[in-house]
Each structure stands twice: as C-alpha cells, then as structure tokens.
C-alpha cells in the first residue's frame, strides 16, 4: 500500500486542459465553457464497434487515460444504450453489424446524438461499401458529427464530442 501511495504522489496529476472544439473563436469558446459547466458535466457515451480494425477503439480507450481524463470533464462511457446521450460508432458498418447498430440506436432515449468516429465510419476510409459492408454510419442511423482520422487522435475525439454537444445545445428546442 505504501508503495502504491508513493507512486501516486510521485507521478502527481497529469491531466491536461480539454481542447477547444474545431472552429476556435470566442463565441464557440464561451459556448464550450457553458457546456462543460452544465451539460458536459454529465454526458453519457455509448460505444459501438460496427466492424473497425480496432485502431479507433484503442484511441477511444485512450480518452480515459490520465492525460485526457474525460471522466474529470463529466464525460463517461456507459454500459447500456438506455443510459446514453451520445452514440459513438466506429468502423465501416459491416452487414453483420448493421442490425445490432440500428437496435442500439433505437434503444437510446431522445434527445440522442450520433458521432461517426474515424475515416471508415465517416465514409472515407480504406473500407468502402462492398459485399460485406454498408459503408458510412449515416447509411444506417442519422449522424450529427463525423470525426475524420485514421484513427482520430484522442484530442480529435474530444473535439468531436464537444462539437456535437455544442451544436445540439445551440439548436432551438
């Protein structure tokens, strides 16, 4: 126990401030702060791998490491779509996964957001439509934000999540 505590003290806090959403200007930044203060402090994400090569999964997992510390921003991955605000989808949507993806989306309460994570999910990766894949996530469920990158870096993922929430918050209800 002593060594564990000593190691925690030795390493200290490594978390970095969150990035600003893409399209950085003063209005956006103010909005961003608002979101982090209100909505963003309790944002539930659900991840679905619809056939990726697992690189996008590695970078999504990295969001939870001490540097990005998304839990510290109030963003957490949840185990059930019924508890989720945002659906994060990776991969070119294989035909074998299309049904499971649609059912996961349908199980989410409204309002719900969908983020297509990475080049394949956005429809511009090395895996386009073919006999086994549908192509972009937007072929199956409506997509609010698409994050490019093969795979997107954790910073790009965080920017995408913030952009999706900003856009949704700015929408008149």
């Amino acid at each position, binding site marked *: 126990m002593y*060594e*564990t505590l000593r*190691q*925690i003290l030795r*390493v200290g806090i*490594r978390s970095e401030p969150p990035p600003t959403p893409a399209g950085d200007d003063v209005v956006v930044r103010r909005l961003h702060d608002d979101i982090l203060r209100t909505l963003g402090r309790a944002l539930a994400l659900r*991840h*679905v*791998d*619809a*056939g*990726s*090569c*697992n*690189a*996008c*999964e*590695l*970078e*999504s*997992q*990295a969001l*939870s*490491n*001490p*540097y990005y510390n998304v839990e510290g921003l109030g963003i957490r*991955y949840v*185990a*059930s*779509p019924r508890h989720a605000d945002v659906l994060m989808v990776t*991969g*070119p949507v*294989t*035909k*074998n*996964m*299309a*049904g*499971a993806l*649609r059912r*996961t989306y349908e199980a989410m309460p409204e309002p719900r957001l969908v983020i297509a994570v990475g080049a394949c999910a956005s429809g511009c*990766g*090395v*895996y386009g439509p*073919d*006999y*086994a*894949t549908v192509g972009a996530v937007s072929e199956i469920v409506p997509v609010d934000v698409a994050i490019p990158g*093969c*795979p997107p*870096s954790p910073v790009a993922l965080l920017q995408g999540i913030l952009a999706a929430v900003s856009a949704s918050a700015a929408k008149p209800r």
Partner: protein
Amino acid sequence: MNVAPLGLVAAPLAGGVPAQRAQVSSGQLLTACRLAWENDGRLVALWASDERDLHRGFCLRVVLEDSDGLTLLEHTLRDDRSRYPDLTPIFPAANRMQRATYDLLGIAAESDDQRPWLWTQGHATHAFPLRRDFAPVAEMSDEQDEYAFVRVDGEGVHEIPVGPVHAGIIEPGHFRFQVVGEKVLRLEERLGYAHKGIEKRFESMMIDDGARLIGRVSGDSTVAYAWAFAGAVEAAASFVPPARARWIRALCLERERLANHLGDIGAIGNDAGFAFGLAQFSRLREDVLRRNQAAFGHRLMMDTVVPGGLSRELAFEHVHAMHDEADRLARQIVRLRGIYDEHAGVQDRFRNCGRAAPKLARSLGLMGLAGRASGQARDIRCDFPSAPYDLLDVRIATQTAGDVWARVAVRFDEALESARLIGIITTALLDPATMGPVHASGPDLPADRISLGYVEGWRGPVLVALEIGEGNVIRRCHPQDPSWCNWPVVEHAVIGNIVPDFPLINKSFNLSYSGQDL
C-alpha cells in the same frame, strides 16, 4: 520439415524465414500434417484460392511450422464438388479456418461441422465472394441467422447470451455461456461480426494500396502486418531492403509490442478491480504513443513500414529520445511490477484463473504470447531471427502456469525485453555503420509467384501470403492472425471459472476480432 519420406519434392521459398512449398495429394496432406504434429510442429494458416482461370481448379493452401521453418502445402481441387480431408483431428484450430474457406469459396472439407462461420446475417449461401466470377447479390436480410450453438441440458443449467455489442470499448463478437449458478459449464464463441471483405479488396490492388490496407487488418498490430506484407513483397522480388530500414522496422515492432503490453497490463489490472494499474500503465502507454507521433507522424505507426523499407526517415533527436525513454520506462515497469506482485487482491484474481495447461495449449495449437504463458516456447524472433534480430539475441519469456497471472508475467518480461531491445537498436542507429537510406525501390515483381511474410507481432505470429499477378498487381493476399488459433482456447480456459471472471480472462488473451473476421 523433411518431406522427402512422403515422396514429395519441396521447392525452397525465398524470404526472411526458411520456407518451402510442395504439391500434395489429399493423402499426402494428411500424412504431412500428422508428421508435422509428431515433430512438434503446428498449424499456422489454412486458406484457398480460386485458380479456375488458370485451369488449376481451386487450390487449398496449408502452412505448417516446425523447427526447420515453414512448409506450404498446396492441394488442388478440380472443382467445387471435390472435398479435401478434414484436418481437425490433427489440428483442432483448423475447424473455423475450414468453415471460413467454405463461406468465401464454396469448397468444403470432409467434416461433420459445416456450420457457416463468417455469416451472422441472412446471407445468400450460394454466393462465394472470393470466386473470380462472384457478383455481389443485391440485398441481405437483417434477420439474425439461427446458429446451432451446442447446448447443455440439466437441472439448473441456463444460458447467457452476450454481444455482439459489449458494455465497454471493445470489438464486436458474441459469446454464448451455459452456466449453472455462477459457474461456466461451456462457452461458445460466435465471431464474424467484423467481417468486411478484406481479402476481396486485395484482389487487383496495386502493391502500394495493399500496403495501406494491410496496416488496417488489425490496428493494434499494424507494424507487424505491414512488415509481414513488405517481407512477402520483397521475398517475391528477391530484394533486400536497406540495413537502416531493417533496424528501424525492428524499433517500430518493439515499440508496438511495448505499447500494447503496457496497455494490456493496465487494463487487466483494472478488470481485477485495480484501477491504479490502469491509470499508471495507460499513462506510460500514452507517453510511447506521443513519442511515435513525434517521430513517425502517427501514434500507432501506421503506414511507416512499406515494401522497400520505410515511408520516412527517423530524425536523430527521436532516436536519442527513444533511447532515454526506454531506460525510464524499464525503471517504471519494474517498480509497478513490484506493486502488482505485492497486491494480495490482484494476485488472488490472477492466480489459477482462466487456466490453459501446457498439454491443452499444445493440443489446441495455442500460439504467441498466450502460448508462451502456457509453456509453448516459440518466438519467431528467437527461432528464425532475420535481420536485425540475428544480432539482437532476443530472450524468450515463458511461463507454464497458463493462467491470467502467467499471461501478465509474460507481458511484464516482454515489455522489459522490448525496452532493452529498443536501447540496443537506438544505440545501433547512432552508429556510423548503420547510416544510409531507409528506402530503395525494388525491381518489378515476377508474376505468378507466391511468397510468405512471417513476423512475431505482439500477440503472436502474423503470416501474410501474397500472390502477385501481371504488372505489380495483387492477385490474392491472405493475412493470418494468431487469433484464429487462440480464440478456441479461450472457450476451454473459462470452463469451471465464474462468469464475472470472463472479462478478466478474455482481456488476458486480448485477441483480435477484426484480424480473424477479415
């Protein structure tokens, strides 16, 4: 393997690992497999190609490995009504490979198990995508197929279906548990959800596009796949890449191993309820990835290893930084290992959990990292070292307990060994003797040639078999992930464990879904 007693003539195959190929009849195929098994050999890969356009029918290919190297056996089937012998009595891991071969090409083994493997949705069962005359059929139904899971009957037995969507950030797959109380009586895996037609995509691709695609077969092993592919291309052209490129390839491969082992040790600790481990090791992993980004322009080093060498130079400042980083990481790993070893709760969860005994591992063909944790002392870097591993004297890490603890212990040993190798490689990269270009263009590739690339990735051996057609175009490319052989062992390792230990056991193997679904 000496195939002469079987009345076979073997031709040598060029490449980094000693290899040979031989044409076999169905009887010789079985005898050769049995001979390999008796001589401590193992099945590495099984796939087939449509060669009817070359008037050769279908060709079944089987790659075996023993202490002499690789043996590629080729068995020609006249048409799709001919069957080939079932290899599962000798190599149980052949089961899913044979079923996938049927799904893709419509040629079957003489086996009792003819269930589909790759199709989980209503798929037209008479359209075989890897046939050259394949025309995609319009629509598939969204209905889940009824898959014949093996069920267990008896008082108090019930079934738990899990997946393909899981509660964490992991790949898609379905697990069907038969349990009594909390105890697992039987687990059956149903994979194929990540099947995206990779092998079909390779057909008619130029070599350069193929190099990009191969790095996305299993993203966590992108360097291993890229190197195996580059190795196969270079073997076909009898071309040796520049020495400096080979040193940097080994540097990338060891950094990939290190990053994955760090991530896994943390995640396995977390699955045992030790969040401290995840925080510490995910931080170290992130440090490695950030250095990769700075040095290679990509956190996972995708598209860095290419046929002919490397896609970019490595600046000296990064070589220095990686040298110092390796030292620093090794010290941290040793300190954290002490904490894991001293933690009674973690050790209690790790020990005797998800055990694959050496005898079971041998009979099922467990390979790579998980194999070494179950007494299977095989590592391509040690058994068939190609440059620069011939100069590195890699120390193999083995355990015999075969449980979660052993798989973590092997990861600790290998992470430290990778750190040591990175130290040696970075020193070599600063030596004037290794200066020079990192890329050279090879000669044009001869058509109608098959070649193999074989690399020890962090998970285990990665094989890429490449057939090249006219004009540097890929005719057929088959990548084989070690997960093919290791997935069935997970089914055995969980028997008798409790359901809540499954995530821990599964993570300790950490197999690829995408790499086997293709």
